[in-house]
């Protein structure tokens, strides 16, 4: 019985449905209650090395499609690509057979020192050439296309000469990668840097977008202004739901993930957020039909 479920999950086309980020605190409840949920996304590095967490991810995989979302590959770094990290990811991909493998448009290490954060790049032609080559190499070594996600940023470099949306579109074109649009990150960065989030959406090629992310942010108030921080510790903000509806109107219903990484609520809260994303997709499909 278990085997047939696994095969069904792997051979059926991946639906444009809502999923949630998999957190270890929720794993047992998901396995026990098998909630109606399109898919789950797991942070790749949490499952490197075939430890105890891998066992649970493999069990989850029998019941749900899984996507693998990396936070540590340091795609935009000028250091050499970490081939051990990539080999660990490749092994995980072979085991889990994810629907998507995604990484970030960011860097997190230089000179062998890791800052373990998603750091912004200067949007220059030099960086574009570099990142496009890196993404192409990653795809070649993994033997599959990856998705690249836009990050939230709290600063912009003076050196930047290309808007982020153009950089992302051009990266997809040059490297052949697909895109994971994080709608919350677009909202956060638009607010932090004063650009128009809708203009961002309009500049992204429709065919490149395979997945969207939604999460909650935190507003940090300073004397000289506010900075929105991508904290993943609360419900999706109303403004972000509105932007998501605009994104669905442009890109259609694509698999959408609710991310919640700290101050974790009950599983039911995540499922509730996922249902809301699902209903926005369904409303779009109903209009389109």
């Amino acid at each position, binding site marked *: 019985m278990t085997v047939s479920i696994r095969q069904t999950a792997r051979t059926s086309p991946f639906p444009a449905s809502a999923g949630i980020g998999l957190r270890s605190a929720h794993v047992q409840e998901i396995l026990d209650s098998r909630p109606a949920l399109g898919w789950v996304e797991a942070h790749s*590095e*949490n499952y*490197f*090395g*075939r*430890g*105890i*967490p891998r*066992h649970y991810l493999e069990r989850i995989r029998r019941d749900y499609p899984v996507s693998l979302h990396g*936070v*540590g*590959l*340091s795609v935009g*770094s*000028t250091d050499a690509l*970490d081939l051990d*990290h990539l080999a*660990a990811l490749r092994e995980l991909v072979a085991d889990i057979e994810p629907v998507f493998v995604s990484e970030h448009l960011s*860097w*997190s*290490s*230089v*000179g*062998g*020192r*890791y*800052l*373990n*954060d998603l*750091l912004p*790049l*200067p949007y*220059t032609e*030099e*960086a574009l050439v*570099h990142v496009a080559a890196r993404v192409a190499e990653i795809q070649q070594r993994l033997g599959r296309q990856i998705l690249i996600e836009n990050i939230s940023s*709290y*600063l*912009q*470099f*003076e*050196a930047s000469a290309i808007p982020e949306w153009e950089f992302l579109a051009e990266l997809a074109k040059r490297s052949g990668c697909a895109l994971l649009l994080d709608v919350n990150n677009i909202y956060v960065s638009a607010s932090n*840097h*004063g650009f128009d989030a809708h203009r961002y959406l309009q500049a992204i090629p429709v065919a490149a977008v395979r997945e969207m992310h939604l999460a909650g942010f935190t507003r*940090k108030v*300073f004397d*000289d*202004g506010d*900075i929105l*921080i991508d904290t993943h510790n609360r419900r999706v903000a109303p403004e972000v739901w509105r932007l998501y509806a605009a994104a669905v109107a442009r890109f259609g219903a694509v698999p959408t993930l609710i991310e919640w990484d*700290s101050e974790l609520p009950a599983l039911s809260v995540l499922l509730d957020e996922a249902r809301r994303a699902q209903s926005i997709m369904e409303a779009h499909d109903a209009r389109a039909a």
Partner: protein
Amino acid sequence: MPALRELQTGFAAAMFDPEAAVRIAPGVQAQGIESARRLQVYRNNLFAGLTGVLAAVYPVTRRLVGEAWFDQAARGYIAVHPSRCGDVHRYGDGFAAYIGGCPGADALPYLTDTARLEWRYHCAFHAEQLPSLNIDSLRSLRQDDYPRLCLKLQPSARLLDSAYPVLRIWQVNQADWTGDPSDAAVVDLAEGGIRLLILREGLEVAFIPLGRGEHAWLQGLGRGMNLLESQQQAAALDPDFDLGAALRRHLLQGVFSGWRT
């Protein structure tokens, strides 16, 4: 140096060094909020993120010293021990030794060893479990091959030798510990030390108390010694060390994953 490399190098330095932050600030757009504040957001994220990583690996240590002391020690550790890996689960080796040298740590003499226990537990939790070496697979060995036999320990196997009852300390500080709460306050340090094998067993991590000779023997095997060398190391510390009994016990326990001669 190409501009991107230079920018990344300068940014990374700015996370740890205020003067480096001053140097790169002109390269950051101010836009209402000053560059220094924007860089500070990243510095906070970095330190809070890795402090969270350490807190997840060392929950008992954190409980013993309190959150404020732990978080301050973590900041100090992060500042001088940069992460070297994109997989944060590999960060924090050496934190046990570091906190032992922090001001006030001498009030808790068992602190470093408790943290060492937690690191080993963490490593075993994330390690692969290979099929255990089957006793039958050794039957092809001739009697005179035995001294040269090298046994490979499971990837999860870790050893600990402490002068303090650190397993007891670890147990009474678990969130789901259901024993007499007053016991938690009266772990008797005079109970003495403990030697442990920490080993993944399926979906659990087991703590297996070891005799002095057994510990030295497994330590020798783990370092690549053959059966004769490791037995000599064990016997030097424990004249009663029984190689046959130790070999049987740990084969049955699944401690070994392979052998060579």
